[in-house]
């Protein structure tokens, strides 16, 4: 009996790692350079017997990519023999850009999107207060200015580099 339990435990441990590595294939549909692991929205992976559960959290309350992400997770796991995977959503604790991996930040920058600054610089309600030193992902200058607080998705703001003159998206800290 004891051996059986140990065996189950071992296979579950292997499976969690395997599921995690499979999730590297699931990208954010709106920022396709990031996997959902890079983004920090995978909160838990549970394997009980042959049942797999992936727990995710939205970046913003209205993130329209969540349904797509759920379907993509189910599709990737299904292709690898986990057809009965459950994908559940939690809101708490609220997602923060602090959970984005360094690898994710590097990928963003290489893709031309300025990665989020550390949270201690985060926005507060005072008007016209700007985050300091958003770095241009193209020429690496810090001489940049905000064009718009909202960009092509809820998680981004629009900036312009005053040196190389290129506009760029900034993945705003949240």
């Amino acid at each position, binding site marked *: 009996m004891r051996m059986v339990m140990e065996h189950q435990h071992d296979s579950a441990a292997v499976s969690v790692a395997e599921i995690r590595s499979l999730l590297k294939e699931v990208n954010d549909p709106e920022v396709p350079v990031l996997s959902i692991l890079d983004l920090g929205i995978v909160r838990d992976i549970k394997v009980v017997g042959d049942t797999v559960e992936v727990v995710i959290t*939205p970046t*913003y*309350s*209205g*993130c*329209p990519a969540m349904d797509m992400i759920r379907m993509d997770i189910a599709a990737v796991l299904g292709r690898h023999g986990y057809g009965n995977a459950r994908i559940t959503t*939690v*809101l*708490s*604790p*609220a*997602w923060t850009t602090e959970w984005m991996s360094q690898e994710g930040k590097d990928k963003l920058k290489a893709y031309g999107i300025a990665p989020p600054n550390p949270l201690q610089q985060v*926005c*507060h*309600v*005072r*008007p*016209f*207060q700007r985050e300091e030193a958003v770095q241009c992902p193209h020429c690496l200058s810090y001489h940049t200015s905000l*064009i*718009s*607080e*909202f*960009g*092509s*998705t*809820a998680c981004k703001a*629009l900036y312009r580099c005053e040196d190389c003159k290129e506009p760029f998206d900034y993945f705003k800290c*949240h």
Partner: protein
Amino acid sequence: MPESAFLYQYVLHLADDVLILGHRNSEWTGHGPILEQDIAISNIALDLIGQARNFYQYAAQLSTEGGISATEDGLAYLRDGWDFRNCLLTEQANGDWAKTILRQFFFSAHQVDLYERLAKGSDATLAAIGAKAYKEAVYHLRWSSEWVIRLGDGTEESRTRMVRALNELWEFTGEMHAPVPYELWAAGSGIGPDLSLLRLQWEERVRNIFDEAGLAYPSAQWMQTGGKEGRHTEQLGYILAEMQFLQRAYPGCEW
């Protein structure tokens, strides 16, 4: 009234506020004054409607426990005007950009403190939704504050429009802090805020921004109420007519 009914009404009120304001803001999509601000107001609409979905999902869960079995979509698309519990402010027509901005500012200045309190409250689901949405509300407040200052302290034309918007909207602001029974219950249960305290915070926020914008804080006057108990201005009907048309005409339609 049983506690579960108070909670259900309170959650619907929270949901309706952000659905209706989100829908109003979404009317700007494709019509914004400049592209960046079209995107901004559309993103704010998206945040608000996302918040509404979280509240409606909770309301649907409560209704199932209470034996009514409402669904998230049914609550949004199949209730009539007298069942909606949103504040009158949120349903007011967009008007021009100044009026839309000022409406958002008044609401966000309320929402940040409301959600901060929900996040610390004793209902775990509302606390989670509140904590998540609080950060979004802060961002909306900063954005709308800047626009109130920019227009109020801008050109003669922008100032004229901001003052007109203020005259049109002010009478709808008092309702946010005039508690109805389910809000008194929520405050008493440690779920929601004491609105009399929230009102002081709201006034301070508005006064500070008005000072910078060169706008005079209006003197006390009689305020419209009723939305939170289902008595609405005619504006709500126009929203529902458009928002609910598809589900009314083609029940259960999906795409």
